[in-house]
């Protein structure tokens, strides 16, 4: 079995020296932080060639995070996919419950190499924050996590987890009080603390070298899955599906398949109430190129270049940008990106719970919904052997409150006060508590 460090070995799909993927990527950021990202880039280049670093990364990924993660043949779910075989790459089974640990362990080791003693992170759903708090505890690093106030409310469980792990969680009250504003605050912290602090960016976005480095730490997902599917079925999947917010889990599973021309790569973006309503977070489907948070990429913006507010039931996908390599893959046509609404994602969430006994993160439920849509198309085109590999990027414990509200499975009085996340009907009334689970 391939090991985590294989992801760092270099590929034939690299950005230029300044981190550009075609017109995307690069560094759109304050001069004050350039020295810091230069240091990260230089240290990463050394580390990825250092057998000791690679051995330590592999040891942690194996003995601590639990890699490799299995591939599960989702037979009962497949019955709902037009007969296509759905295979789940189980990143939800990693320690801390998502793919985020892959990147965080790598960057935490890098932090130690650079002699820094404090890490900061931004988080949306809290999965990256929890993973960072975990790695910080493991390595004795001080940890501060910035999280939009809206997200601290809808992902309260993860806030508690981070605090239990010894991290300071700072609710961000500026702007839209979600993930993009958490990123702003993390940058503001970093510019003043860079001497002793490393910013563990949580997705394959931001300034060079983050998009490439974070991708490399996550390539293990695709490398393992490719081997596992080949070994079990003697063939490659016809399609690989993943949800895309910033896009780290998607780029991790897509990348090792880039040269497999017959394998379709499909990213599913959060369409919220529907792209046509304007209340969504589908940056590639509904956005245009622009510079935000350190890189050029697709962005949800108005005609003045102001970042638009986004909406998704999934805090982890509720972000107006996307990693630059996805923008590049979208333009080139090598990967395609489609929107999945809140309602479609929650239906897939329900189905996975009931058919496979797996409660997915709502983020990952977008990928499941996408696969259910893709299945009949592939079967019609390729026949009954059509196979879709889905990245089940995280587990849904953190989303139990949100899902319970959506489906109305518990007495609303027993839940913390929060506006119900259900869709708003034409009269503005929120429909909730009446769905069939």
């Amino acid at each position, binding site marked *: 079995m391939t090991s985590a460090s294989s992801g760092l070995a270099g590929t034939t799909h690299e950005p230029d020296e300044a981190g550009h993927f075609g017109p995307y990527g*690069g560094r759109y950021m304050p*001069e004050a932080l*350039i020295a810091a990202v230069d240091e990260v880039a230089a240290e990463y280049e050394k580390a990825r060639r250092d057998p000791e670093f690679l051995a330590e990364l592999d040891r942690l990924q194996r003995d601590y995070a639990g890699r490799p993660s299995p591939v599960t043949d989702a037979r009962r779910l497949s019955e709902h996919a037009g007969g296509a075989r759905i295979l789940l790459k189980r990143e939800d089974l990693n320690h801390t419950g998502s793919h985020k640990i892959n990147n965080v362990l790598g960057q935490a080791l890098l932090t130690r190499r650079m002699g820094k003693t404090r890490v900061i992170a931004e988080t949306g759903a809290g999965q990256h924050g929890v993973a960072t708090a975990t790695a910080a505890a493991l390595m004795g690093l001080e940890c501060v996590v910035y999280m939009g106030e809206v997200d601290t409310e809808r992902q309260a469980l993860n806030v508690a987890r981070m605090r239990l792990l010894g991290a300071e969680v700072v609710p961000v009250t500026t702007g839209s009080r979600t993930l993009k504003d958490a990123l702003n605050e993390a940058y503001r912290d970093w510019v003043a603390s860079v001497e002793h602090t490393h910013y563990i960016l949580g997705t394959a976005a931001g300034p060079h070298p983050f998009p490439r480095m974070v991708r490399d730490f996550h390539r293990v997902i695709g490398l393992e899955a490719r081997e596992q599917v080949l070994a079990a079925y003697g063939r490659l999947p016809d399609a690989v599906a993943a949800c895309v917010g910033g896009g780290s889990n998607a780029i991790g599973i897509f990348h090792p398949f880039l040269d497999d021309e017959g394998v379709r790569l499909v990213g599913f973006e959060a369409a919220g109430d529907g792209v046509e309503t304007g209340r969504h977070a589908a940056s590639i489907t509904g956005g*245009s190129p*622009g510079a935000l948070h350190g890189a050029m990429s697709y962005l949800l913006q108005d005609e003045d270049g102001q*970042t638009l507010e986004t909406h998704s039931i999934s805090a982890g996908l509720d972000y107006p940008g996307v990693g630059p390599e996805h923008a590049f893959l979208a333009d080139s046509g090598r990967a395609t990106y489609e929107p999945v609404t809140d309602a479609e994602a929650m239906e897939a969430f329900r189905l996975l719970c009931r058919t496979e006994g797996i409660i997915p993160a709502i983020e990952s439920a977008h990928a499941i919904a996408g696969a259910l849509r893709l299945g009949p198309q592939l079967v019609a085109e390729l026949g009954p052997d059509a196979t879709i590999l889905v990245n089940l990027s995280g587990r849904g414990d953190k989303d139990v409150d949100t899902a319970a509200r959506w489906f109305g499975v518990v007495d609303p009085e027993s839940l913390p006060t929060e506006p119900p996340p259900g869709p708003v009907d034409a009269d503005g009334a929120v429909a909730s508590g009446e769905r069939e689970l």
Partner: protein
Amino acid sequence: MTASLTGVDRLGEVFAAAKAEDRAALIGYLPAGYPTVKGSLGLLTQVLDAGADLVEVGLPYSDPVLDGPVVQHAVETALRAGVRVRDTLGVVEQLAARGGRAVVMTYWNPVLRYGSGREGGGGPAAFARDLANAGGLGVITPDLVPDEASGPTGWLAAADREGIAPIFLVAPSSTDERIAATTAATRGFLYAASTMGVTGARDAVSGTASTLVARARAHTDLPIGVGLGVRNGAQAGEVAGFADGVIVGSALVSAAEHGRAAVARLTTELAAGVRGQHTGR
């Protein structure tokens, strides 16, 4: 607008005039649209009338990563009130029409996206053209480094074509190599960030500022303005001792919360400070 002189030339005049008086130039920042578009025009006029040599007109942006709470609050207020990019250019135009000298301070995406809804194409070239036509002298870009300005964005070429100054920042963390490259791309004046951090008034001027200015002087004859953290006449006087320009932002924004008189008072104090006439407080 003086017909034959470019924005870069006129910025040169600002610093030359101050130097002729053996003092540093005073540069004041306020965002357009705060508290209203008309209000911001009044406040910026006040800053110029009370003794600033140049103003930076801030272009409100949704994600100001290099700004502290005071500026964040002001630009959020402006954006909520519906300020548009064209309003910032309008403020510059009206200041210029009455002889005021102004540059724009903006994050990069609004320039990149400028005029995107318009026929005939927009982007940095159109922004540079419209700013020059409005009588603006240059653009400070806190999140654009020269590395990304010479490539596909074509910002350096666009600014050069219109005679406006691309003004870049150096920071205490900048290597000598980067200071050399940044000063080579900069026109008008160099913006030296006095400290590692976001904008905001501070009790003491960081000791790293004079070191940074000295390091930058080894690479350039451009005037050097120092910003971040200056809030009173005494600090302005201190910075004027080693820099060619003293840049004040957050302190003026805070004063603006109390109205035009407060802005005039602070500007007068700062103007005395850069002239070495500050009597302490």
